């Protein structure tokens, strides 16, 4: 069968006929890639503009990076973004790892489907809906307790990061070989020892992938943060959203470029990590 098919394929190739070709698809695909990268490249290019203008090129300079670096508001917002993302990503990853262990090992149990659905709801509910619901809920807590710290933002970020962290961890657990764990059990390892010595080391790439995904997702959030934050709690994205309504200078491009670079680095690491087969 296969060899006959290949034989035909060779014959077809000789006549210049490819079964995979569809007229114009290549052109559209190139157009698509061009469209995806043109805006990003323009944005990066103008971050190096010596001129105040966002339209006319006035020579190469790092001026806007410098001014962004010395901008106290940008510094505060960046640190706050990182702080929230770190805490939320770690909390979400721990919770997601435990949940993934509970839903991939052993027989199915009653309520498992419901728990699975619950973990994934943040992916389905539109962000603006969650954001307004949290605004209402947190507003009443703020009134009754008087607490207005970063806790609200961290709680909200942790919740919507959990399904993202859960995804790669669960995938890793499902593709893992169970025989080693069984063998450990046969050799009188306690469940904790088996987990600590066998499961955890094998699961590690999945956990790191989940952590990075959660980190990026938290760092990128605009809508929920914008509605939940109290006064003076701008993160970098909400600061930028506020700036876009005024006259923008290439300083925003400079901040965006650094932000982009950070995302690209994390995603590349994630990509390499998830390609590593168990």
């Amino acid at each position, binding site marked *: 069968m296969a060899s006959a098919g290949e034989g035909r394929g060779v014959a077809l190739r000789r006549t210049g006929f490819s*079964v*995979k070709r*569809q007229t114009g*698809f*290549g052109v*559209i*695909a190139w*157009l*698509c*890639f061009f*469209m*995806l*990268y043109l*805006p*990003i490249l*323009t*944005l990066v290019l103008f971050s190096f503009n010596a001129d105040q203008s*966002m*339209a006319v090129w006035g020579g190469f300079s790092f001026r806007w990076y410098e001014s962004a670096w010395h901008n106290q508001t940008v510094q505060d917002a960046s640190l706050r973004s990182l702080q929230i993302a770190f805490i939320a990503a770690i909390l979400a990853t*721990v*919770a*997601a790892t435990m*949940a993934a*262990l*509970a*839903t991939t*090992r*052993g027989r199915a*149990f009653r*309520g498992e489907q419901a728990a699975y659905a*619950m*973990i994934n*709801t943040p992916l389905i*509910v*539109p*962000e*603006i*809906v*969650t*954001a*307004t619901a949290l605004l*209402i*809920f947190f*507003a009443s807590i703020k009134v009754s307790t008087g607490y207005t710290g970063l806790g609200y933002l961290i709680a909200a970020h*942790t*919740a919507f990061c*959990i399904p993202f962290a*859960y995804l790669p961890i669960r995938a890793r657990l499902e593709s893992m070989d169970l025989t080693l764990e069984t063998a450990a059990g046969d050799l009188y390892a306690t469940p904790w020892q088996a987990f600590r010595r066998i499961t955890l080391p094998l699961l590690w790439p999945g956990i790191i992938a989940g952590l990075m995904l959660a980190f990026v997702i938290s760092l*990128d959030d*605009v*809508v929920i943060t914008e*509605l939940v934050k109290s006064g003076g709690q701008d993160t970098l994205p909400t600061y*930028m*959203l506020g700036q876009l309504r005024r006259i923008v200078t290439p300083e925003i491009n400079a901040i965006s470029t650094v*932000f*982009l670079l950070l*995302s690209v680095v994390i*995603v590349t690491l994630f*990509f390499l990590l998830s*390609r590593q087969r168990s």
Partner: protein
Amino acid sequence: MASARDFAESAERQDVRRRWALLSPALVIIFFAAVGPLFIMLVYSFLQKGDYGGVRWAFSTDGWFSVFFQRDIFDDTLSFADAHISILWRSVRLSLMTTLFTFLLGFPTAYFIATRPEKSRDIWLFLITIPFWTNLLIRTFAMQEVIRNEGVINTALLWLGIVDQPIQIMYTDKAILFGMLYVYLPLMVLPLYASLEKLDFRLVEAAYDLYATRFQVLRRVIMPLVKPGIIAGSILVFIPSLGAYVTPRVLGGGKNLMLGNLIELQFGQGRNWPLGAALSMTLLALVMVALLIYARQAQSRSLRHG
């Protein structure tokens, strides 16, 4: 015998208890900071609005009523809330158009990637994923750079002499459409690619043997086979488009709001929390309907194929 079974049962119960314990942190966090507040919002949609935002604890259907209707302040006559309905309609229309255009661009792209040699596919896929994981606000801002009056498109058109005045794209529905097309395109390409990658090209070959034209092969063989991917991609694009907030706010300007902005407005300057809550619930209901249609489709497919 009985004791052995008892032992097995109690071990099983213990295992289930342990697994619920493992699940509990995730479930508790999601309940308190994502799902639970939705129920509070449902309650709020049936309360009276407070004077300076917030609510008064008295039952009222005013919030839901004003989603669709308005009462004239002078003669008390009822009429449809044109402003709300036009925003609702714009949201649905722009989301459907975004879905259609991302498909028209995304399908050939996914097909292109799926038919590359195996080694280079990962690279192409990576190029699609990169914009997807970069900040949505930054991508929207980048789009603004392109479609502005002094942006890349208009500068190029002016320079080429095709137009003698910049085309106004910013602050129109077209700008929102461009923006959403740009930010949600990867969400269409990825599931389409997942389906196309599994496509058995021997079937395509068989169709050519039976004298099918290229278009017939595409229409009658490839499209039906990748239908799950098409539906998944459409849902993945349609749902976030419907609830879009950032893109219309940045690109759409003052009057061209979408549902997401209308909702936010009620909690900000509008100071009408019950209306905002009712609008939020309406959006959630629309999303649920879309998901239900999706689930139906998936179910009938699996029934047909056993």
